[in-house]
Structure formats: structure tokens, C-alpha cells
């Protein structure tokens, strides 16, 4: 079983509700699910779609071919009919679309009429459609009915009953009328969890003991704020919507300076405003975590779409020189773990740590049997009241042997904590002399960097042990590259190198990936940007030049088929 369902229509037609409900039913059935969304920067109208892939094998990307197209408007048929697989079906409501479509692939189901007849209101047309899709796939209705009950439990039995009848009506009609349907569902297994990348970053933050989050809303980073705001009371987290991103990062710095784990996030434009504050984190050695959810630029670009265009910017953002850590998770599970490591390393080395992802990873949902949070250990690196009792003399920027000065919580003892954006002495007071400047740069930068470098893991390897082709990528392209390797492995020795720990650039001690690459005949860098930012970074850091590049910058994610086409073109 490996089916793709695309739900298309205008913003405001409930595409997301149908997509989310189906994905949940599939995940609870124990199937593997992958979803991605395509939407425009508008609240009503336009053309949007939600694509769900459901399989009994692990899936980590969308396919170009679709098996069921749910068309809520005529445009969806015009745009996506050609994507239909050989056994594919288009379901629509001819009364809503004001026209009938001829052909064996079309299945006209009166969503609205059935909703009125069985549910008592046309509002339930989407519930009818959801039931119909399950009917087409030959699935059972119990999990959908359970979700309906849970969703409407506050609205009472009448509403639950109406929605149940509407869903059943759609299901029954599809079972009776979809005579051309050749879909069959695999057996159900243990339920899986379904999680989007942006929620995974938020989850990682909560599990790291994040206590403070300040941000200004900006797509596609806003989901982190939504997630954390929902956890505010239960976990004692203060979430503040700042007046701008400059305030957001400065509030985050203030909270961290006062002794709590703190985070902010934005997209490229908002992060550009934070850059001054990033540099402040650098000189004051204040630990903070910054999320950067990329979208296509420059400036406003394509606000609801995806790109990996900010790697070079992020690595060099901020005036002056200071250490930082940059992680780029490839899937939600990595996002949880790398967000946790970002909090740990930020505090351990008193530096800014960044999680960079993009609209694609942020919005895509993946399934897992479970994400193990028990492995996440939180170490408190700050000096609090108890530890400060034994300190005779405290200096915030003391020349410690390893360059990492003691990080005390102000107000927890008689010791004073002094931080300064000017170059400063050990106590934190402003200086001008060259000797102190040199010693501070030595402490803050030179002494820390080799230690931080030791923390960075090598890239993840997948596929052939001795490949003749290696695909190279970073961040959100992980899933799609894995699927490409799986397909290509049938005919040749192909491997994947995925970099999720980008800065400091990983060394070769634990895994000599440079030799691995040199031994392959062909290396292909796959990036969602126009200039091959990672390929350039790799060359600058290691001297290794990747032989080919596949660069996509139209704001849309790769599908399995599209990426395979590009790779075949590279391989000649």
C-alpha cells in the first residue's frame, strides 16, 4: 500500500481540516504517513492543496503521482488531473463545481446534498468527503468516528450525531459507487504519532526546560510560538509576543541573563532584524537558542513557500567574530533532538545556538512509533544560590582555564553579575586597552571553538557502503534524498550524506567523509537554493569540490519523481 491523496481548493474551504483528519486516521491505523501543504499568502481564495501519502512502509517525501484527487473547485481538476496515477480517481461534487466531468476517473459525490440530508447542514460537506475517501480506500470508519466524537465533545450529542451520519453517508456512497476503485488498505498495526517539524522544534524546547520564548509572528516560524503558548500554563513557560524581532531577541537575552533557558525564532526577514542582538549574545556570552524558519527571499519573497537560502547568511550573521552552533534537522525526530542539543550547547559554552529549518520541514508531518524523550538529559550549567555560597570572588568573565567563565544567576547571592556589549574586563566593565581585548577574544573565541567542534557529529550516511554516486544535502531534503537513494539502489551503488550539524563544520576524525566522497565517482549536492550554498561552504571548509548540483529555487519542495529526474540528468 502506497497511496497519495491530494485535497485541492480555495483557502477557507476546509482543505486543512480534511487533510489533518485523514492523516490522523491513517497514523492511528498504524500506517506510515507523510503530508505536505501548498498554500498562498491569503486567508480566502486562491489555490491551495494538502497532500497525504499513506503507506505500510516508511515514507519520507511526497510523490508526483496521486491516487485520489479531492477537488473542492474546478481549478483543482485543471491543475492536478494530469498527476493522476493509472488507477487514480477524482472525487468532486458536481453541484458545487457547477458542472459534470465525464470519464472513468471521475466520481461525482454530492458532498453538500448528503451533508444537508444526513447532517442537517452543508457545513458538513467536508465530513462527507472525508468519509468518502475512507470508503474508496476500503478502510474502516471507527477511527474517524472516534475523532469526530473527540472533536465535537463540547458541542453535544446532537452535533456528534449529525457529523457521524454525514461521514457515514459519504462512506456508504463511495463504497457503492466507486466501482473502478482498486484500492485496498493494509492491515492496521500499533498507532503511530504524527508530528510536524515546527511542533517538533517546540517540543524539543519544552523538553529542554525552555522557560521563556519571545517572538514576532512570521510565517513559517509562528508554529513554534503557537506550540509553546499552548504549553505556557502546564509547563510554566512565559511566551511573549514582542513588538518586533529586535525586541524579541533582546527580551530573550534578558531572560537568559536572569537565569532561565530562553529562545526566539523568526523567518529570514525577522532574523535579519535580530542580527544585532545575535552579536550581543556573542560578546556578552549569553546563551540563547534561535530558530530560523527559512522561506524564499529576498525580502518578502514567497512568504508561504520553501527555500534553503539562508545558510551563508546565518553562518556569518552578526557584526564581529564570535562562536555559534548551527543545526539543521532533516526530520521532526531530529528537530526534537537537535533543539535539545542547541539548548545544551548554548548554555554549556555560553553562545548562541541556531536551529535552521524551512517552511517545508516546518509544515510536513511525519509518523513515528514514538520519539524517545527519556534520552534527553538536561544539565544546568549555571551557578545558582547553593553553588554561589562557596564562591569567594565572582567575576562574570573570569579568565577560566578552558575559556568558559562561570555563569552566575544575578540576585541569587551577594555576588554581582555584570555584562557589557563593550569589550570588557573580567568583571564585565568597559575597557579600551589592547591586552585585555586580546585576552578576551582568546577566551571567548579561540579557546571555545576547538571544544565546540568536538561536540559536532559527522554527517549521517545512508545507502551503499562503497558507492559510486553520493547525494549530499542538509536540513529538510533528508527525507526526499533517502527515498531517491532507495529507488536508485536497485540499479547502482548509491549513498547519501546528510548534514544536520553544520557549524562548526564537522571534522573528519569520527568519519572521514571526505575520503568517502573522493572514492565515489560522482557527487551531487541537492539544495533548495539557487547558488549551492552548502556546496560552497563545504569547499571553503574542507577543500572538497562536489562534482554536480541540483538546485531548486521555485519555492516548491522536490517530489520523489522530480528529484530522480534531476539526478538522472546529472548522471547523464
Amino acid at each position: 500500500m502506497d497511496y497519495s491523496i491530494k485535497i485541492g481548493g480555495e483557502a477557507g474551504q476546509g482543505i486543512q481540516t480534511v487533510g489533518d483528519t485523514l492523516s490522523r486516521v491513517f497514523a492511528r491505523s498504524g500506517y506510515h504517513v507523510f503530508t505536505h501543504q501548498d498554500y498562498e499568502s491569503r486567508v480566502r481564495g486562491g489555490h491551495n492543496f494538502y497532500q497525504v501519502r499513506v503507506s505500510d512502509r516508511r515514507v519520507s517525501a511526497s510523490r508526483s503521482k496521486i491516487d485520489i484527487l479531492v477537488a473542492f473547485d474546478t481549478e483543482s481538476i485543471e491543475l492536478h488531473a494530469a498527476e493522476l496515477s493509472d488507477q487514480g480517481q477524482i472525487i468532486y461534487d458536481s453541484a458545487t463545481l457547477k458542472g459534470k466531468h465525464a470519464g472513468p476517473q471521475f466520481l461525482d459525490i454530492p458532498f453538500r446534498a448528503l451533508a444537508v440530508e444526513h447532517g442537517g447542514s452543508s457545513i458538513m460537506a467536508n465530513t462527507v468527503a472525508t468519509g468518502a475517501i475512507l470508503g474508496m480506500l476500503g478502510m474502516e470508519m471507527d477511527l474517524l468516528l472516534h475523532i469526530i466524537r473527540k472533536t465535537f465533545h463540547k458541542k453535544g450529542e446532537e452535533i456528534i450525531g449529525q457529523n457521524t451520519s454525514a461521514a457515514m453517508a459519504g462512506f456508504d456512497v463511495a463504497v457503492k459507487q466507486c466501482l473502478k476503485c482498486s484500492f485496498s488498505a493494509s492491515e492496521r498495526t500499533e498507532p503511530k504519532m504524527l508530528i510536524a517539524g515546527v511542533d517538533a522544534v517546540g517540543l524539543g524546547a519544552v523538553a529542554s526546560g525552555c522557560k521563556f520564548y519571545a517572538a514576532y509572528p512570521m510565517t513559517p516560524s509562528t508554529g513554534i510560538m503557537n506550540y509553546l503558548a499552548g504549553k505556557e500554563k502546564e509547563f510554566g513557560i512565559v511566551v511573549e509576543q514582542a513588538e518586533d524581532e529586535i525586541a524579541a531577541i533582546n527580551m530573550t537575552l534578558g531572560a537568559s541573563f536572569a537565569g532561565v533557558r530562553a529562545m526566539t525564532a523568526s523567518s529570514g526577514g525577522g532574523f535579519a532584524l535580530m542580527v544585532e542582538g545575535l552579536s550581543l549574545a556573542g560578546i556578552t556570552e549569553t546563551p540563547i537558542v534561535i530558530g530560523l524558519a527559512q522561506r524564499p527571499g529576498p525580502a518578502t519573497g514567497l512568504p508561504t513557500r520553501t527555500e534553503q537560502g539562508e545558510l551563508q547568511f546565518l553562518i556569518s550573521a552578526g557584526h564581529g567574530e564570535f562562536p555559534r552552533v548551527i543545526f539543521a534537522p532533516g526530520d521532526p525526530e531530529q528537530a526534537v533532538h537537535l533543539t535539545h542539543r542547541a539548548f545544551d550547547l548554548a548554555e554549556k559554552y555560553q553562545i548562541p545556538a541556531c536551529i535552521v529549518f524551512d517552511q517545508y520541514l516546518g509544515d510536513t508531518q511525519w509518523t513515528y512509533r514514538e520519539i524517545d524523550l527519556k534520552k534527553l538529559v538536561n544539565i544546568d550549567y549555571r551557578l545558582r544560590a547553593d553553588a554561589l555560597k562557596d564562591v569567594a570572588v565572582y567575576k562574570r568573565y573570569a579568565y577560566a582555564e578552558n575559556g568558559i567563565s562561570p555563569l552566575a544567576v544575578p540576585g541569587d547571592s551577594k555576588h554581582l553579575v555584570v555584562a557589557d556589549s563593550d569589550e570588557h574586563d573580567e568583571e564585565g566593565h568597559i575597557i579600551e586597552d589592547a591586552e585585555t581585548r586580546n585576552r578576551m577574544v582568546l577566551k571567548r573565541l579561540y579557546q571555545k571553538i576547538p571544544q565546540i567542534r568536538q561536540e559536532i557529529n559527522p554527517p549521517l550516511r545512508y545507502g551503499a557502503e562503497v558507492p559510486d554516486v553520493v547525494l549530499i544535502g542538509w536540513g529538510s531534503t533528508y527525507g526526499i534524498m533517502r527515498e531517491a537513494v532507495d529507488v536508485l539502489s536497485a540499479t547502482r551503488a548509491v549513498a547519501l550524506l546528510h548534514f544536520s550539524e553544520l557549524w562548526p563544520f564537522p571534522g573528519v576524525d569520527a568519519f572521514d567523509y571526505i575520503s568517502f566522497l573522493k572514492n565515489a565517482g560522482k557527487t551531487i549536492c541537492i539544495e533548495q537554493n539557487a547558488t549551492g550554498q552548502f556546496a560552497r561552504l563545504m569547499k571553503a571548509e574542507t577543500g572538497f569540490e562536489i562534482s554536480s548540483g541540483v538546485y531548486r529555487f521555485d519555492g516548491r519542495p522536490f517530489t520523489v519523481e522530480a528529484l530522480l529526474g534531476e539526478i538522472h540528468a546529472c548522471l547523464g
Partner: protein
Amino acid sequence: MPVLDDYKGQSPAWCPGCGNFSILKTFKDAVVDLGIEPHQLMVVSGIGQAAKFPHYIKCNTFNGLHGRALPVATGIRLANHHLIVAAVAGDGDCYGEGGNHLMHAMRRNVNVKLFVHNNQVYGLTKGQASPTTSEGTVTKNQPLGVFSEQLNPMALAVALDCSFVARGFSGDQVHLKSLIKGAFNHKGFSLVDILQPCVSFNKVNTYEWYRQRVYHMEADYEPTDRVKAFARALEWGERIPLGIIYRNSRPAFEERFPMLQESALVRQCLDLSKLSGILKEFY
């Protein structure tokens, strides 16, 4: 009890005769009078001559970026509302670069005391016009005179319902001390605009200029009437009122967070037992 010497910081790099000296001295006198220990106090600043203040006092301090003292102070208060937090800024720092933050700090009513050293000119960058420089003033960067209307911080603050709005004068330390103490005793965001000559770059608004114009508001002035306060805030020119112009008792921002009711955020640890249920919503 703290004594003045506890607050002895580095020796100031301000110009001789600068109004900042008396503000610094008065500030220290006020916090000693209030019995605040240096480790209980946090002074946050941005950049400018006034913003060097944290180096000339001895307490917890965060000397951040130009215009950004208030968001840092807000973050500190939300993380630990047991710290007494003051922000010190100049007119360019706070009314120019950080104008947006000022507006929103007033809206939030975060319990931060803001002291603005208002000398109506940029000192650190040597003599350019600030938001409070009077219209028509000629400077090196404004050779045709300042075209923009002079900002009135008191009227702005009253308009935004800032919960404590006061004006002092660096040449009147006894009165200024009472305002600083009043700000510390107030629960909520407090703006104290302190008129202060710049002996190096402002040749118009001198000690003499201020002395001829400032007056203490009458003893029976009622600062809780917002409309009257606005009228008083508009007074400028021949007569400049000193004192608490406006005050209200809106709840402080920190009080509104239910999770800060029992203890400061900095005292709260992650409850690992709660974490076990966090994945439920994804199934």
C-alpha cells in the same frame, strides 16, 4: 542596610560639569535610602553617555545595545520578578533608536523604572540633534536647523496611559531624589525624564536656561486625572513643570501571568513527570 560606599563604581568618563554626575549621585542616594542592596538591583542600559551609567555604580548590570535597554529589562523582569530593575537611557537612545520599545513597555506596564537623561542632544556622537532637540536648532548635521517637531516624552507617556510619569532636573537633586524614590515605590512601568544640560554640545539648554524655566508643581496637584495631566504635560517653553505629572494603578505586567504567581520563573524547574504526557496529542 546598604551604605553609599557599597555602590561605588568606576570613575566616570563624562565631561567635567556634565549633568550626569548629579543624576548618578542622586540615584545612589535614593537606592541607599530605600534600603536596596546592590545584589537585589539590576541596572540595564543601552548605548550613549547616559548608558555608561552601569559602570559607575556597583550592582548587577547589563549594558546592552543602543535603544534596546527596555526589551532586555522586560526579559529580566519576566524571568525574575524579584529583582528590582531600572533602565537608564539618554534621549537619543530611548526616544529615538528605542522608541518602539518605549511605547510597548508603557503598554505592557512591566515593572521597570526608566530614567532618561534628557539633554536634548547627542553627546557620545558629538552634537547631533536628538528627538528632543528644539525645532530650528542648528547643528553640524542639521546646518539648516532641525525641521522636525520636538518630541514631548511626557505627553507621549500620558497619551499611552504610562502608569508613572515624572520629570526632574539634574540641578535640583533633592526634588529629583524624591522622584526616583517615587518611581521605585510605584508598582508598574515608571518614566522619569530628567532634564540635564550637556556642557559640551548643547549651548542653548544650559543650567541657566533650565533654572529660569523649571518649577515644582503645586502641592495639591492631583496626578491621577489623565486629562489634566495631559494639559500639564504639554507645558514647555517659558515654564516647565517638575514633579509627578501622571500616575495610575494599572496592574503590572508580571502580575498577569498565572505561572508567575507562586514563584519567579528562574526558580521553576522543568517537571519531568509532566513530560511523559506531552506526546499524547500527537497520537
